[in-house]
């Protein structure tokens, strides 16, 4: 079963982390990626650039318009994701709990089942 683990980050919370905490966060993700690769459960993971880099595209009366993002004015933004393929929802939750963000107040780790896949998977 495929799941997308969304990492909802709060830039204020991230900024408030000490250098050591930031290092530990990065190392935690590194170890998580390695473990998932080895178990054959990782499809892909990607981290997104800062929300200030987002562009919102809309088309009205056939005319495209681009405005500065992000689309949602919120405290938390999608910072990145893991796309995994594992045995069950229970296993996906077990894996999500190993992501260092899950242990930090103000950061959100969200597990969602994938409903449809298409496109090249050799990323």
């Amino acid at each position, binding site marked *: 079963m495929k799941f997308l683990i969304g990492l909802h980050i709060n830039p204020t919370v991230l900024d408030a982390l000490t250098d050591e905490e930031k290092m530990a966060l990065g190392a935690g993700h590194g170890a998580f990626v390695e473990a998932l690769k080895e178990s*054959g459960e990782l499809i892909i993971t990607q981290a997104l650039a800062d929300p200030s880099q987002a562009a919102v595209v809309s088309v009205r009366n056939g005319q495209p318009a681009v405005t500065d993002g992000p689309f949602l004015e919120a405290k938390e933004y999608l910072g990145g994701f893991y796309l995994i393929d594992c*045995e069950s929802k229970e296993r996906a939750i077990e894996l999500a709990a190993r992501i260092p963000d899950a242990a930090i107040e103000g950061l959100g780790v969200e597990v969602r089942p994938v*409903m449809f896949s298409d496109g090249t998977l*050799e990323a």
Partner: protein
Amino acid sequence: MITAAVEDLLRELAPQVLGGLVLRHGQFEGCEDAVQEEAAAAAAVQWTAEGVPDSPRGWLMTVASRRLIDQVRSDRARRERESAIAAEAPPQDVPGTDDTLVLLFLCCHPTLTAASQTALTLRAVGGLTTAEIARAFLVPEATMAARISRAKQRIKAAGSTFSLPAGADREERLRVVLHVLYLIFNEGYTASSGRELDRPDLAREAIRLARMVRAQLPEDGEVTGLLALMLLTHARREARTTTAGDLVPLDEQDRTRWDRALIEEGTELAKASLAGPALGPYQLQAAIAATHADAATAGETNWPQVHAAYLILERIAPNPMVTLNRAVALAETAGPRAGLALLATLDGDERMAGHHRLLSVRAHLLEKAGDTAGAYEHYRRAAKSTASLAEQRYLESRASRLRP
């Protein structure tokens, strides 16, 4: 271009040769590479160009043994094993096909997850390439390669001997093997998303493997029952979706599109499987599928018989899904209210909480009972709860028929 005949022959022989090789030398991982990566690949080229040799199995065994020796030679750390293997003359042929069964037992080792068991079975016994298996499960090849490699390591670490387990252990392991074949079949049958045309036909592969197991264990009722269940389910394949890919429920399927040959074979096997002393879940499910296959129209279905089979199934293998299916049969024999009352007993079951099947069956029975508003509400909730796009479209279309 490799001919289909050569490909079929290779996929039949490669696991037998692999089984024989592991039996002689141990080292599942090395043998697997030697057979699948090297010998089978060489055979595909050479046999297609020059024709199939007189003893194709002996040919494969000889080439694979040589490759294994080469591998061991090139591996300095394993130098000490070289003389032992090299001293053994490559066998002219390997005995019987029992080895394929032993190999299947090894791939379905209980220390592996179901995902790893299915992947390894398709690779080592089914002879599919890692790329093909990856496509079948819609994951990248690297992901599947890691999963298979991890599975091989686990088997090695478990120190499993290459032999058929005995007694009760054997029974239990055989259940795992059958479950893995069932999972492979289901994955093929419920192919859920895009690029279906690229996906290897897992349902057919599962049927091929089930036939192979049955050839080895013709007396086992559950083996025969599983094969029958697969054939009877596969027979409906053409009728269960529209050309646009929409699901067609059993009672609305065009039964003239069911595959009669598969139904005949499946029905015979289902009957044969019931003749044995013990009765298992696959035999009962096959009996239910055979009852449906026997009805020329949905209205002619022998529902009391279906209900009785689910009742027995519920006793020997209690499971909320079985109760759910029995509720559908009960609704047909005793009316939708009786079915709904049975469904109510599942409400406290954690395994079923918010499950889309419970919601959709309840919607269906409410609709039959004339509660349009309730049915609409439950179809909508069921549509939100499923992770299958085809099922969601179907449930939404049912809901929109009842829109208040």
